[in-house]
């Protein structure tokens, strides 16, 4: 059976197509303002890559924002549920999932069979999301990839005082004026966000194996800072930004139509889904 998983993120859409359980094709594209259209376009394009048509696909499950506006999806599942399923397939020993995307930072405690046991999220403050790193990269006048690479060269720890992406930008500019090495500033940026992500993760408890996914998992500077911050090992799967879509595809393969999870948003219980 052919199934598809669609993950509509704050910045990028990801699509994974599974044929009899194996990855047949995957694709990523910018989400932009028209989320549903971007998802549909990418889905079509990814199907073409696999030599398939919409009619060949048995079931489509979506996750992420604008989930319910995706007309071609058969079902919507919560981000945390998608993450849990995707990670469990790749790393069966995973017990804690950290997912940092462009606009959210979440931590999920999962059971051995891939069910969400507990969950915490920051989706209100840009300082705990990929957007923070991008804003600082702009202030440093380099790409996020360059910033990730040079931060590994730094052996200095400079604390960033700003708790906010907007103030952080001013702080980076002022550090540059003080002639601080850009590699040290880059590391400071990663240390700062690692601290915030670790705080969210500690709400659910850090139990190994810890797996990190989402766009930020591709940032080796951030991963290094996070490993040091939690003093534990972190597993980074290949294509970490596709894991949400993979999980949605897994849900499609298992015939799941709806999956909600209870959310801890800074100590409050809210049902998401």
């Amino acid at each position, binding site marked *: 059976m052919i199934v598809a998983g669609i993950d509509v993120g704050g910045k990028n859409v990801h699509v994974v197509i599974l044929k009899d359980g194996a990855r047949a094709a995957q694709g990523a594209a910018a989400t932009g303002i028209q989320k549903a259209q971007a998802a549909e376009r990418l889905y079509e394009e990814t199907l073409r890559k696999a030599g398939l048509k919409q009619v060949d696909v048995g079931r489509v499950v979506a996750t992420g924002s604008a989930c319910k506006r995706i007309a071609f999806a058969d079902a919507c599942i919560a981000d945390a549920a998608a993450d849990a399923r995707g990670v469990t397939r790749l790393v069966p020993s995973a017990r804690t999932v950290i997912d940092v995307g462009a606009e959210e930072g979440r931590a999920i405690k999962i059971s051995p069979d891939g069910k969400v046991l507990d969950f915490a999220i920051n989706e209100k403050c840009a300082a705990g999301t990929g957007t923070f790193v991008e804003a600082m990269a702009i202030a440093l006048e380099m790409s996020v990839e360059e910033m990730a690479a040079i931060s590994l060269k730094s052996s200095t720890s400079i604390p960033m005082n700003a708790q*906010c992406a907007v103030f952080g930008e001013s702080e980076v500019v002022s550090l540059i004026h003080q002639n601080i090495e850009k590699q040290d500033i880059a590391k400071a940026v990663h240390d700062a966000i690692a601290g915030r992500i670790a705080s969210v993760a500690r709400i659910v408890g850090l139990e190994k194996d810890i797996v990190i996914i989402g766009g930020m998992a591709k940032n080796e500077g951030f991963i290094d800072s996070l490993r040091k911050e939690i003093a534990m090992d972190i597993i980074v799967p290949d294509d970490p930004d596709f894991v949400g879509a993979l999980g949605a595809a897994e849900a499609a393969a298992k015939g799941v139509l709806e999956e909600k999870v209870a959310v801890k948003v800074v100590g409050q219980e809210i049902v998401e889904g």
Partner: protein
Amino acid sequence: MAEETKKEYWRWPESTWVNSGIDWKKGTIITVGVDVGSVSSQAVVLVDGELYAFSNTRTGSDSPDSARKALGIAVGETGLTVDNIDYCIGTGYGRVNVPMAQRTITEIACHARGANFMYGPQVRTVMDMGGQDCKAINCDDKGKVLNFMMNDKCAAGTGRGMEVFADLIRVPVWEIGPRSFQVKKEPPMISSTCVVFAKSEVVGLLEKGVPENDIMAAYCAAMAHRIMELLNRLGVHEKFVITGGIAKNEGVVKRLEKELGIKTAEKVWYNPAYKDYPFDTQIAGALGAALFAVAMVSKGKVKSARKK
């Protein structure tokens, strides 16, 4: 006329003023307050406790230079130099870096004192929004601080939040207030608290073709709401006044008044003799600092630092 991308919409004009009715050489006690904020810097010069000169400038990358620049611009061609000053107090975020100051006092105390002088002894609550913070201060009839609440961690509800927005929609920051009222109907406020996420929300509205003035109204409303939450945690008492840059944004002020159900005091000097002097809400901190200085010198609590 196409304005190229180099134009900076947040860059409000710097200003300065000297009281031509006072000859500083005839004064006895000359005191100065310098408020170095993260975004703007002000200097206020008092001659025997009367307003003599002030400046409102943009803080540069170097705090001591910003302090010197603010004072230099304030005194301009008057011939007054640092050596003629009896006492100078530094305040604001960069207060420890005011090279000509003999002492520093927190901006909370200075804003309350300055607001008391500007608006009068009936002031009980002062809201000051600076470049990177927002404070709600309760004070007594002498301008002494009784209680306060402050946010200096999050850009939402700070001057930077408004400047970032101005740059995004490419409208000079001082036009936003008036234009936010040129709408057919008051739109719903921007839902994201975070300035960064609010920016994405604004981009979405722009792409949907929502009129710019409506977006300005939505943003001002969101900012007013944010300030109101801080004020309500402290408790607002009349006479309620606003100092700092945001007092100049009617779009936020009027919406804040509506949410609170309390009107802010009119922006006029309490002292009728000052009625023709410019009333710049951004000088409140530096003014309070200069007032503390003259009180300390005249009561003999500190020694004059005057050299000439």
